């Protein structure tokens, strides 16, 4: 359960104050599928960063599962990011010198898990995304779609409640983009809260809840049709 109330986020650009987020109040239920759309500069990425605790609101309260997370210390926020939130980026952000398996292992290392507990979980996460035979490949030996699947494995290996995806298909061709979205939707079907920023209306319209942003405000909200069950499309 995500609750934002009266969130403001201001940036100082020269002597001008830019309201990246202007009085945003929003509640997202656990297991929901939300897309955030809007033109660039509308504040959708800022909202996502804020939800992921990568950014702090200038004012307002953010409650995650009933807990006021804006009041937490750096270390506690890092722990929340590690345990309860998964990130998927447009640029994948895999560490180039690490293999697929080692990239997936990173959040577990940061969680301080001993190696014997990490290995089965990494193997499981890679297996789920059909990457087992790629686990020792470096990112530059993988295709774009495979890289994003490694990134998704990394985001979900800690079994978070919330998955935040920032233009997850932005750097992929149509087919692998579709593939990635189906994987994300599949994860959502199994109870993961999925929040996806996109400027592609076709992608965005698949979400159960569609938020539109303009000039830092929530502009309009549409309830979309239930997404297709991914398994039907798979040949």
């Amino acid at each position, binding site marked *: 359960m995500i609750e934002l109330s009266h969130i403001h986020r201001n940036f100082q650009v020269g002597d001008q104050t830019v309201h990246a987020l202007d009085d945003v109040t929003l509640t997202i239920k656990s297991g929901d599928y939300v897309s955030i759309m809007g033109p660039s500069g509308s504040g959708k990425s800022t909202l996502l960063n804020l939800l992921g605790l990568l950014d702090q609101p200038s004012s307002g309260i953010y409650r995650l599962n009933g807990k006021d997370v804006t009041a937490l210390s750096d270390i506690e926020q890092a722990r*929340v990011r590690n345990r309860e939130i998964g990130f998927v980026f447009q640029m994948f952000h895999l560490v180039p*010198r690490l293999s697929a398996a080692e990239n997936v292992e990173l959040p577990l290392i*940061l969680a301080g898990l001993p190696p014997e507990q990490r290995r089965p979980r990494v193997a499981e996460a890679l297996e789920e995304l059909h990457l087992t035979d790629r686990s020792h490949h470096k990112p530059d030996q993988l295709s774009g779609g495979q890289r994003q699947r490694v990134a998704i494995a990394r985001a979900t290996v800690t079994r978070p409640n919330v998955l935040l995806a920032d233009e997850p298909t932005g750097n992929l061709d149509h087919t692998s983009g579709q593939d990635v979205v189906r994987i994300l939707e599949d994860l959502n079907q199994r109870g993961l809260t999925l929040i996806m920023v996109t400027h592609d209306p076709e992608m965005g319209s698949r979400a159960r809840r569609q938020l539109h942003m303009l000039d830092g405000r929530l502009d309009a909200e549409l309830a979309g049709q239930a997404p297709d069950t991914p398994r039907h499309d798979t040949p």
Partner: protein
Amino acid sequence: MIPHSPDVARFSWGALRGYPARTLLMLTAMAIGVAAVVVLTSLGEGARRYVTGEFASLGTNLVIVLPGRSETAGLNPTTLMGETPRDLTLDDALALTRSYNVRRIAPINVGSADVSWQSRSRESVILGASHELLDIRHWKIAQGRFLPNTDLDRATPVAVIGSTIRNELFGAKPALGEWIRIGDRRFRVIGIMGSEGRSIGVDVQETVIIPVAAAQQLFNTTSLFRILVEARSRDAIQPVKRFVIQTLQERHQGIKDVTVVTQDAVLATFDRILGALTYAVGGIAAISLAVAGILIMNVMLVAVSQRTAEIGLLKALGASPRQIIVLILAEALLLSLLGALLGLLLGEAGSLVIRHAFPVLPAQAPIWAIVTALLVAIITGLLFSLLPARRAAQLDPVLALSRR
């Protein structure tokens, strides 16, 4: 929450291997710094050992008496024959034995003369001495024996020769018992000096030693080059010095016409010189390590900005600022450690080369210098990485991730 240390080490090692140019640069800087410390201190230590070794061969608790006031003291053999206000004589030397504090004395006379055996001949330094000199100077006899223990004024025609002289005159033939000619006199070879006899100014291997009275006859003089007086203990040196000055002043009609040098004074001078040398060496070494440290700081700063996206990602994955600092410092620690070890090898190789090139100089870095160099390297590495590590920890993850 700190990740397991093997994980940190593995991650840092991977990061180092991921940027080989940077890693190599920093390793080199660190290695040169540490190697400089090792080589420089081994040189300093070598010099110190060399000088103390020389002094040990000169004798211990020595008081050296030279004819003339210090301004006119002739210090090389050619000025020996020159006029000094009043000569030191064998009787002067004998008078110096009359004190409890004096353990033994050795009057010395130096000159040069032709030494020949059969058809072979060479010019050589002739040292007129007495039986006591062997023990005072801590010399060793290789073959035969040293000068006999007789009265100082007995000019026994015997000689002890250095091994170089022996080789040049006799080659492979036995020398002991043979008669050699020195100047216009004949002497029987009774001993050959061991390899110990090397001390400041005189190479005993190129010297022929004969009784002091024989040397005085040979050079037609009654004067002495100097008298070595060995005090019973370190504490006795000053009383002996006063005793010597007073005795000789009485014997020389109240005129102070000798110079008395204690080994202490000479040693103190060398101590000062070597002390200054050690400070200089330490300073140079410190500078090179500081340079290495600053280089590490620069390169780590570059490393942090090079890996901005990676650090942002680690934060997004749940790394706390502390964990980021630990990761960066672990990298620096690994670098410093590897660099220091590399430098240690390099430095040891350097002192090995020096030992081979200059066998006289026992160049060997002392343990304290090695330990200090390692510690300083690691501490500078860590210290100078604190700033880059803090900068990494404070990176704004949003900005870090948006950069390509």
